[in-house]
């Protein structure tokens, strides 16, 4: 009874600002301008399959790069002295204290054809490289902005692995590589899965990064939705339909991810908790 009372404000808040808006999105998606039921919007989403594919591809590439860069760093942090660990974690989070837009603007001025990097290249006698407004720049922006969300969950899982478990593996005959592959990596899968989810989801639906670093040629789902609500192609019904489809895709992705996680739990991950 008491917990119900305490949770009441949260329940009300969530109903008002999460459940109701989602319902509204669904309603918009299945109606036309006059408010009559239609499947047109959903069917029209199919036209943008190339945008969906590009979003998922770039999001997946950015997630993979974040994982490849972030896992070793998380591992190094977890192996550092306790006093050094907190400093390193702070350094990982430090960029997040700076405004997201500002950080992305900074990359614009670095990557521009007349930007800092190209000027530097010219100064040392190398040719200019076209970097801004490419898919690569978008991926770079995604990795740069979201990699802390990969590092932190992996780090927190790695830090919790008891050293005696690693010693037990060595004791049973595992060398450094085997210890990592057979004990550390499987035991840190739950962190990897949260990291992947936390990077992939915002990367797939971003619109600022693609707008600022991708130019017009790298339209992502986020941009498409943005255009339906604020841009020239004003059509909230279509925008809602795209949002809904994106949400379903993300839910399927997360469902697959959590499947991995559940397997871990069933095999005795309870020890970690």
């Amino acid at each position, binding site marked *: 009874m008491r917990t119900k009372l305490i949770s009441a404000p949260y329940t009300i808040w969530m109903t008002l600002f999460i459940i109701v808006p989602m319902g509204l999105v669904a309603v918009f998606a299945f109606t036309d301008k006059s408010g009559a039921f239609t499947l047109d919007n959903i069917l029209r989403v199919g036209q943008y399959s190339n945008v969906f594919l590009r979003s998922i591809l770039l999001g997946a590439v950015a997630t993979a790069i974040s994982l490849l860069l972030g896992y070793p760093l998380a591992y190094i942090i977890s192996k550092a002295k306790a006093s050094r660990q907190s400093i390193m974690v702070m350094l990982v989070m430090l960029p997040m204290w700076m405004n997201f837009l500002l950080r992305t603007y900074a990359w614009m001025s670095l990557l521009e054809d007349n930007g800092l990097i190209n000027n530097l290249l010219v100064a040392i006698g190398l040719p200019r490289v076209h970097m801004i407004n490419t898919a690569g720049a978008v991926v770079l922006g995604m990795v740069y902005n979201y990699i802390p969300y990969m590092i932190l969950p992996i780090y927190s899982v790695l830090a919790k692995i*008891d*050293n*005696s*478990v690693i*010693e*037990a*593996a*060595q*004791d*049973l*005959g*595992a*060398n450094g590589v*085997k210890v990592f592959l*057979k*004990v550390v990596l*499987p*035991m840190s*899968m739950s962190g990897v899965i949260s990291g992947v989810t936390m990077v992939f989801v915002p990367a797939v639906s971003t619109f600022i990064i693609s707008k600022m670093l991708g130019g017009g040629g790298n339209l992502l789902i986020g941009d498409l939705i943005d255009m339906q609500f604020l841009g020239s192609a004003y059509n909230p019904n279509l925008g809602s339909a795209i949002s809904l489809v994106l949400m379903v895709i993300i839910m399927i992705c997360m469902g697959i991810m959590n499947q991995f996680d559940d397997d*871990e739990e*069933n*095999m*005795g*991950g*309870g*020890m*970690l908790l």
Partner: protein
Amino acid sequence: MNKKPIITLKDIAVSFDGEQVLKNFNLTIGDGEFVTLLGPSGCGKTTVLRTIGGFVRPDSGDVFFGGKKINDVPPHKRAVNTVFQKYALFPHLNVYENIAFGMRLKGKKEDEIKKTVTEMLHMVNLNGMAHRGVGQLSGGQQQRVAIARALANDPKILLLDEPLSALDLKLRKDMQSELKKIQQAIGITFIFVTHDQEEALSMSDTVVVMDKGEIQQIGSPIDIYNEPTNAFVADFIGESNILDGMMIDDYLVEVAGQRFKSLDSGFGKMKPVDIVIRPEDIDIVPTGSASAHVNGEVTSVTFKGVHYEIIVDVDGFKWMIQTTDSASVGDHIGLALTPDDIHVMAKSVYSGTMGDYSSFSDEMGEALQESSEEVTEDAD
């Protein structure tokens, strides 16, 4: 120790962050022995075990395994397996895979692995548990898996780091006798670390009593109990009244103002010594009677089930007596001693610091032990 030595530690010194944990440590362990390293927390016993396991590199000194120097051999290449204090099972693997872990690394065939795992499960009484997750097991079952996992690797030596300390009393007793049985059945060397003296006495062939990084005494459980070499050992193993005495001559000792025939010799004439008298060896007689060597007043009586534990104030020094005779607080009683009861020890750094029960309480003894725990034991 007439068995062939399997492990020899020679002049080992280990320090963590400038703190000396072991110094000039020498120990030889025979093949097939059940050896217990016994001492209070922070005495360096776990460090000895970790040195043998390869997890601690000594600052100086050598470790020999069957006569071969293994200082530079990493843990995964030593024919030694460890049962860790907190079990350290792999949470992402089930019981079967935990036990199979070492064999898989060695590339054993699947049917051989299956056979060994089944054998091991049978040995530790976990038949039918192969496919449980280790998180679903009780503490005692997890401990058994840890033992099976270590033994499945067919080690020459099994190291056990306080493996029973997390279990409740009943389970601990069961596991003690089971471990002893397993050791006798497979005949390999067990090196067991504990701070529980009763555990050490009941399981071991040889007990190594340690304090402050040094060996205080090595011997069979009976030797250690009956012939402690100094006040520390006497106090740590069981209850002891430790008094100042004087060795008048060989076989003649003076203690508590009386002269007794003694079974000990070789201390020299008129030499100050420590005297140990075990509480269970003292008889209560009427005060002032001919056989009463000392007289005192009862200050506390505790019922312990089998016996009473009575604290007697004799001119300010408090004796502990364990007896089946009852007495009441305030009674004046006489204590009778026989030469057999009096064990003479040379004076040591521990003289005068222990063996008086004036501030005695069980809780306090334990609290002191806990607080002396060194960071170094848990340092890595």
